[in-house]
């Protein structure tokens, strides 16, 4: 099936090379914590409000705080037609998987009955937006002082024709690529988000996960730098 060879990436990157990344902490002064994360042309901003009182009351959890994620593409951010405002099936699923991506690391036992609201707006999209969203979100959560056992770093790994490629652009995604967004914990390298569109062999997936570790560590470096730019201090 995959007889075609992908010889050279359309933007000239090496196959294992992520796009240029940029991160900044504290971009929404009114929020309790916030950050922006840019990967190539995909640009996400995340803001955290809370822990604050959870409404409606029936959603309160007496054992811990609840992380609520709201991923939103701005109407002008997508390629092609305008994105209709408001939640879509896609954005609701992304909310769910991002919530689950943070579940293993976030410690909200001190904040029973509260909500931690995480809002993520996409200003421009060029594939890999849920990963950019997660990378901004983990910084915003840290900025808000939410306890996390480890940071989360995410990267979409793909397979275009015969090549495993890191951090696909929309142009590459449209080449019938396999798309595998992965979020990993920074220290222990555990997977907290894994999705896939496309068909791949077990061996290839193993290789994808191996490369995901290297790629997410590169993300982590950018995240750490952004936190240090705001807070200074030692690099942990």
């Amino acid at each position, binding site marked *: 099936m995959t007889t075609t060879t992908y010889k050279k990436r359309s933007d000239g990157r090496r196959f294992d090379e992520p796009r240029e990344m940029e991160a900044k902490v504290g*971009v*929404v*002064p*009114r*929020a309790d914590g916030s950050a922006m994360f840019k990967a190539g*042309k995909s*640009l996400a*901003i*995340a*803001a955290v*409000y809370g822990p*604050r009182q959870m409404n409606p009351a029936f959603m309160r959890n007496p054992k811990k705080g609840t992380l609520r994620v*709201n991923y*939103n593409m*701005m*109407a*002008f*951010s*997508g*390629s*092609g*037609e*305008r994105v209709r*405002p*408001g939640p879509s099936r896609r954005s609701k699923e992304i909310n769910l998987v991002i919530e689950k991506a943070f579940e293993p690391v976030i410690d909200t036992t001190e904040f029973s009955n509260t909500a931690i*609201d995480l*809002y*993520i*707006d996409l*200003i*421009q*999209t*060029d594939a890999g937006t849920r990963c950019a969203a997660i990378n901004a979100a983990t910084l915003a959560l840290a900025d808000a002082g939410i306890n996390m056992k480890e940071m989360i770093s995410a990267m979409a790994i793909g397979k275009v024709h015969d090549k495993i490629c890191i951090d696909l652009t929309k142009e590459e995604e449209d080449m019938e690529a396999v798309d595998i967004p992965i979020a990993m914990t920074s220290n222990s390298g555990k997977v907290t988000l894994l999705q896939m569109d496309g068909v791949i062999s077990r061996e290839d997936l193993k290789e994808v996960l191996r490369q995901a570790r290297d790629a997410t560590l590169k993300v982590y470096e950018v995240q750490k730098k952004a936190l240090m730019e705001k807070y200074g201090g030692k690099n942990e």
Partner: protein
Amino acid sequence: MNKEYVKELIKQGKRMDGRSLEEYRNIVVEYGISPKNAEGSARVKIGETEVVCGIKFEVGTPFPDKPDEGTIMVNAELSPLSSPDFESGPPGIESIELARVVDRGIRESKAIDFKSLCIKAGEKVWMVFIDIYPVNNAGNLFDAAALAALAALKDTKFPKYDEKEGKIVYDEKTKNELKLVELPVEVTVCKIKNTFFLDPTDEEEEAVDARLTVAVLEDGKLAALQKGGEDALTPEDIDRMIETAQKHSKIVRSKL
């Protein structure tokens, strides 16, 4: 929160951040903040308030009574990302008011010649979507949103339209700029007791008794008005507020 404190300060002619009554915070306009997919985009910062706006084009059928005119749609989303006071969900009345006041300034001033949006009379016209999002609400979203919309429109180029296929080729932007015939800048004048002031912070907004948003054209003519707040205004108040808006609209416009 400290409504009474704000009211007292304003009465003495003072502001919490040390500005004078008719002094705007620093205004910064940035163009092309989402250049990949939007036909035009811009960011406006007024102090800590930040608003982004993007333009998307679609093709639609003209209204039967205006067969050779395209149209604009303004939409504002008070994103809960930008303020602890905004909630998720369908646009509330505040979003709708903001969008409609921005819409009126552009539409009524004829800032865009709707005839320039005609592709084929009676059949196909451009519809220009203007989407506004606050990123940080530190007050005065009206003036920031109106300015962001103008800036994004100034940044706009038409996408290519494939007549044969009858669809837009979004990837191919033309060099054809959207022409702005007017620059209707909106200035909101606020009133607490008998004192007037400009560019309220979010805390000051909570204490405002009345406000008047005025869309002012380059020659000083008025293109749209919106009164808000609980208190009534006298005709003298209104005249004075308009004079203030006219004066300061020049400074705001110079930031474009």
